[in-house]
């Protein structure tokens, strides 16, 4: 089986995997980073969202062979200590219910804020509409994104050097 060297959350990791193995299963089963979730395996739920060079991407739809040198950021790498404004806002707004979709929601939202620091509700809806939540936490997701955007504006944070330094988009 071919070996691949990936950069995941800033660490270089080498794994052996069949070339069609989706990045999702590399992350979850070979690297044991279980924060990134499997929901549908078909590009329909976004529970599997990670950042590839800052772009929000469906990890279930990307074979490992296609990752190349792109830097992978998972929920575990978003911040070392839940200090990302979105994580803080998620806690403040008590967003999660079962919580299963939430890593994917937060990773999508992080890519949105990196591109659109002060999104309108419509922009939030438009960006987040492919992230499914069976527990119906959407009202609070919207509030939490607004809260994080406001907190960032207050703190005038604009120079994070982690996953959001590049222009992101939905992959």
């Amino acid at each position, binding site marked *: *089986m071919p070996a691949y060297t990936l950069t*995941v*959350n800033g660490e270089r*990791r080498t794994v052996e*995997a*069949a070339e069609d*193995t989706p990045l999702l*299963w590399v992350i*979850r*089963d*070979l*690297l*044991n*980073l*279980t*924060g*990134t*979730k*499997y*929901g*549908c*395996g*078909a590009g*329909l*739920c976004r*529970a599997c969202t990670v950042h590839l060079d800052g772009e929000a991407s469906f990890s279930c739809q990307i074979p490992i062979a296609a990752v190349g040198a792109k830097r992978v950021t998972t*929920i*575990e790498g*978003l*911040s070392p200590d*839940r200090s990302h404004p*979105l*994580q803080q806002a*998620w*806690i403040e707004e*008590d*967003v*999660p*219910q*079962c*919580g*299963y*979709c*939430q*890593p994917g929601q*937060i990773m999508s939202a992080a890519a949105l804020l990196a591109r659109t620091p002060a999104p309108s509700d419509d922009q*939030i*809806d438009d960006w*987040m*509409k*492919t*992230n*499914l*939540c*069976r*527990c*119906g936490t*959407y*009202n*609070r997701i919207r509030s939490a994104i607004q809260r994080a955007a406001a907190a960032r504006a207050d703190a005038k944070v604009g120079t994070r050097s982690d996953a959001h330094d590049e222009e992101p988009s939905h992959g």
Partner: protein
Amino acid sequence: MAEPIDHANAAPAPADAQTTRPATAASPDLRRRDFLQISGGVGIGLIVAFALPFAATREAAAGPEAAGDAAAARATGAMPASELNAFLRIEPDGSVVCSIPKSEMGQGVLTSLAMLLAEELEVDWSKIRSEHAIANEARYGRWRTGGSSSVRETHDAYRRAGATARTLLVAAAAERWQVAAETCRADRGTVVHAASGRRLAYAELAERAAKLSPPAEPALKPRSKFSLIGKDLRRLDTPAKVDGSAVFGLDVRVPGMLVAQVERPPDLGGQLASFDAKAALAVPGVVAVFEIPRGVAIVAKHFWAAQSGRKKLAIRWTPGPHGALDNEAIRKLCTAAVEKGAPVRTEGDVARAVASAGPKRTLEAVYDFPFLAHATLEPMNCTAKVDASGCELWVPTQSPTAAADAAAKILGIPADRVRVNTTLLGGGFGRRGDSDFVEDAVHIAKQMKAPVQVVYTREDDMRAGLYRPTGTNLMRGAVDAEGWPVVWEQRIASQSLLREKGWPTKDGIDFAAVEGVKNLPYAIPNVFVSWADVVLPVSIHWWRSVGSSQNGWVTECFFDELCRLGGKDPLAARKHLLKDHPRHVRVLEKAASEAGFGKPLPKGHALGIAVHESFGSIVAETAEVSLDADGTPRVHRVVCVVDCGEVVHPAGVRHQMESGITMGLSAALWGEVAIEKGRIVTTNYDRYPIARIDQTPRIETFIIAEGDAMGGIGEPGTPPIAPAICNALLALTGKPIRRLPIGRVTHMT
């Protein structure tokens, strides 16, 4: 057989027995695993610690074996905490750990039950941690999470457990100081002796307190002294849910663990004829392929290898015996049965009232409701390990004791040799009350002699059956000369949950099929309700709000149809016919005023309202709806008013209402499991859409809690939303919606 998790017949767990009944002593081998720590972390540490409270509250009570075990544990330094009772232990650092024998599936039970414990224990909320208990029938009774019962069934038991612990800690301090216990009091994690100003932290007292005899009837705090109950505290499980560290079933990593998938017959009732595993076994990482009762198991080193091997499997299935079955055929079977039902409720004389009303003032209608999938975002899964000492499970289940029974039955061992670690549940909604995924995991782990995680793919999960039942209603109603409804006739035909689950029915009536109809609250003089069972080859299960999920829709929509026939305003008519139900009227009035009934709406918008009682709570909801150019309904705003009696955690109530409403809205707009040519063809979220953020309305929830008996929270939000939407559409278009889902609109982009 599935664990009965439903409400009405489910006896409350004997949760107050924990202080008096000794626990069953588990085998030493199982005990040692109490201290097992599984470390699967790479980079970011993922530690799943299943540290167990000692199985015996008081060592002596559990016999010498348990005492010996505890001594051994102490010798190895593995006894960090003092267990005050089955629900509470105190760590040396003063933190308090609550062991909760109810499953956290999003409803916040790890928080709300911990609030009850902490309230009586007198400890700062910041000191509280909460985790699932290890299932133990002798200690906690049957562990079922369902019927919106968790808080209301066990409310007092949890408070008593907290109060017992507090009393023991005070007693331990009094003993240390040689003063009367009455002169000491508990105060935020310490005991104080006011006269001398002395103070000791709980952590210093816990070991001694754990050895004292618990009081028979501990004094509970008066309501006026509550400092936690009724407050909007933050959930305890949130931090782990925003950084990826929360452990759901699929996140369990046991050393040496394999991953399995199960290929099942494509046809309903199909059987395995033969299979050839050669090509599958040639896929790198595939370890074994063999038959289990539900199909063919593919066991591999990880998910993708199992999936790749599965694609290479050559299987021949015998066709199922239901080749012509589809949704339309099922509808016909229900329609054929609908006149043959047994009477459920008879009041007045329907035939005479219909005759005197005449055809102009009589209305007949057929209402159909479809199979629904739970579609939890985490698909079904279970991790099992089988060895000489017994079996260990790591599983997101609503019914750990039923899971233990299922494993024990397969293995031919007593259920107390099955240790069940309940992980977080990525959604439940009733689905995880069944143990099909546990059975699969145990069958496979038994053969593999290694821990195995069975994963249902999304497709497996959706096709696995256990749906909300389908059915038909033949409705007839009539209004009098003034337009007031005077006849309500409802003939129901639906697949019986109770029969399928092997539960006893009362007088041949499935209470789950008629809930909300049998007790229809409207003052209508002539009522006839009947129910007929329809046997279908599709398995069914409890689905959020059970019978009320369809009956709330049928009754509240047909009520609006009758109002239209009689020229009555639906809100005014409800209030008029609910005069003897002041709680119903109260939620209706509040919802209508918050939603702005009677005020002008944007052009093309209409309001609908519905009220329904289930699980001891009464909920009114309004929906403001418009239609897109292509006919897609758009729900803009929902107002929800819930009367659930006493409230422990108001934010939890609001969030559960939002959740129930969103799930009910998805079902109303798009929910239907499709069957074609004897097969389930709904396999993923493209064919089974659930609401997205841009399709979810603004939801405003108001709670009425005025000390009435505590009602359920997890389910009652769901029933009123479908009729509120349909009633708004009726107001908008003049056309009733008599079949769900409302519109199958392709909306996934």
